[in-house]
């Protein structure tokens, strides 16, 4: 077999390489200088530079330039690039939230930021993957860093155990994913998406059972990462146990990356597999919507409620995955953008309200917040209402987009379930709002302030409102046009 050098388009790799080198640089720098301020700034700078490269690629791809590396295995089409923006935004918000928080909680170790960058770069690899091995690599790069981050509060049992639990179940899910990849490889003999599809469509193909089984296993593996019921059990414990900024990071960046990967393989590979593969996702979505929303309803702690709400939102997003044509892809990217802003924003507010050990997120703590901390209460209201899907906020438009994509794809009854459960969701999102505005304070509120967190909250509020009132511009930018894999 002759040795073929891979074709590498360095620009497509630039955002990724920037993040990786910033992470390494920051980790090295942290060896000599324990100032976490410098490292945090370096990390933000790295994210900004990566975003600039990403923007350049995005502009080029809108002009019709289709770029990729390694023979269509690392894609820089508009879908991947839009996801990169969302990932970079989520990581930047998480870092802004983290900075003062870590100081307050006495968890200040500069290695935190390189880990976050590494995790974000893994997420970008997942979004760009056009090959199952690359997908797996991205997933592992992303996950290993997050396992460590969620156990960052070394002295606290909850955090250590959250990390351990996340790791064990994550390794379990990875095993399923790898097994699924192996089965698809066994059936078709290939790893890259175009070749797999070609293999599945080839005449005389007999291994459809093996391939479908592989598809279901991959779905289970990725379903774990996005917390689809019944693979969601880790989510509440890990979300509550991990330090709040890490929870914010997990809930937005990890979810975005896993959905990016899921969307791509669902758009290209799953239609060619047996119906069972798609049907199993339908069942998972129905379960997720019902279990996620109803369990969130009975939670008293806000952080735990937000964890279950994250499960429920995974259900709405998976609805877009089902309709994974152009419309579904656009809807999902839009939804994830909105979700990143409002969810990260909600967790940011939470860091200012709970004490240094992340305790005190009970509903009662929210009572009368509108009087004691009016701006914080207003921001939290914006995020919660947006998560609930109230009009003129970003979450509403996301829901409309997802629902119309799903109806167009013919999943009407599933959409009905989604819309009805979203009423249930209103109740648990509005409950904290009612506590904040309709009750008298029961506790002396913490007067924690932090400039960087305030910046993050400001960005999130601004984005949530702007996207809600003028959704058109971002949505029209997501007109994915020609995808690299579409012409197969």
């Amino acid at each position: 077999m002759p040795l073929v050098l891979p074709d590498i388009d360095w620009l497509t790799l630039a955002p990724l390489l920037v993040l990786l080198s910033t992470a390494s640089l920051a980790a090295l720098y942290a060896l000599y200088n324990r100032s976490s301020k410098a490292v945090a700034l370096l990390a933000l700078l790295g994210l900004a530079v990566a975003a600039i490269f990403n923007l350049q690629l995005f502009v080029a791809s809108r002009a019709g330039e289709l770029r990729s590396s390694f023979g269509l295995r690392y894609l820089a089409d508009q879908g991947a690039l839009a996801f990169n923006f969302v990932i970079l935004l989520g990581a930047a918000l998480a870092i802004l939230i983290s900075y003062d928080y870590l100081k307050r909680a006495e968890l200040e170790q500069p290695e935190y930021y390189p880990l976050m960058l590494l995790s974000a770069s893994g997420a970008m690899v997942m979004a760009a993957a056009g090959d199952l091995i690359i997908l797996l690599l991205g997933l592992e790069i992303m996950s290993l860093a997050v396992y460590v981050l969620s156990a960052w509060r070394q002295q606290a049992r909850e955090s250590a155990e959250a990390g351990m639990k996340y790791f064990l179940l994550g390794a379990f899910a990875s095993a399923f994913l790898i097994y699924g990849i192996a089965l698809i490889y066994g059936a078709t003999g290939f790893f890259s998406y175009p070749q797999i599809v070609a293999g599945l469509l080839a005449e005389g193909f007999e291994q459809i059972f093996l391939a479908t089984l592989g598809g279901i296993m991959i779905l289970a593996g990725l379903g774990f990462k996005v917390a689809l019921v019944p693979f969601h059990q880790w989510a509440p414990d890990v979300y509550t146990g991990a330090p709040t900024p890490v929870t914010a990071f997990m809930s937005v960046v990890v979810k975005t990356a896993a959905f990016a990967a899921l969307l791509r393989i669902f758009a290209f590979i799953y239609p060619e597999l047996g119906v069972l593969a798609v049907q199993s996702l339908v069942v998972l979505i129905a379960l997720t919507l019902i279990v996620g929303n109803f369990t969130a309803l009975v939670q008293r702690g806000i952080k735990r409620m937000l964890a279950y709400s994250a499960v429920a939102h995974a259900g709405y997003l998976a609805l877009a995955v089902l309709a994974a044509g152009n419309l579904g892809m656009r809807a999902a990217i839009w939804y994830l953008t909105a979700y990143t802003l409002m969810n990260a924003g909600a967790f940011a507010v939470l860091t200012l309200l709970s004490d240094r050990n992340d305790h005190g997120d009970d509903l009662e703590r929210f009572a009368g917040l509108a009087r004691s901390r009016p701006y914080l209460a207003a921001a939290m209201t914006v995020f919660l209402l947006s998560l609930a899907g109230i009009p003129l906020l970003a979450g509403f438009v996301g829901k409309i987009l997802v629902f119309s994509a799903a109806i167009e794809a013919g999943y009407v009854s599933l959409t009905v379930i989604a819309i009805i459960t979203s009423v249930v969701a209103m109740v648990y999102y509005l409950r904290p709002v009612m506590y904040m505005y309709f009750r008298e304070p029961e506790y002396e509120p913490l007067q924690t302030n932090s400039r960087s967190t305030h910046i993050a909250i400001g960005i999130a509020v601004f984005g949530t409102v702007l996207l809600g009132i003028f959704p058109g511009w971002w949505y029209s930018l997501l007109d994915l046009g020609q995808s690299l894999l579409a012409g197969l």
Partner: protein
Amino acid sequence: MLTLNHFLALGAILFAIGLYGLLSRRNLVAILMSVEILLNAILVNVVAIARFNDQAQGDVFALFIIAIAAAEVAVGLALFLNVFRLNGVATVDPLRRMKE
């Protein structure tokens, strides 16, 4: 004569053993070992498929799996040590407490 299906069956059996271990063991180290068995089960599959298809791709994937397994164990043991230091025991029982 050994066929591909024999290897796939062996892989499936090993995977089942790993799964059983993961779900039934209480000791964290044993659980970590079960994860390893899971990954090795897949490894058997992949190598066999690569051999029977006469492709290098599968072998490369096998190498990736080994590397990933190593990285996972490294992180896993670190997390395990942390839990062990705090709880003084090496079982999953304290983890259950979080479920409330």
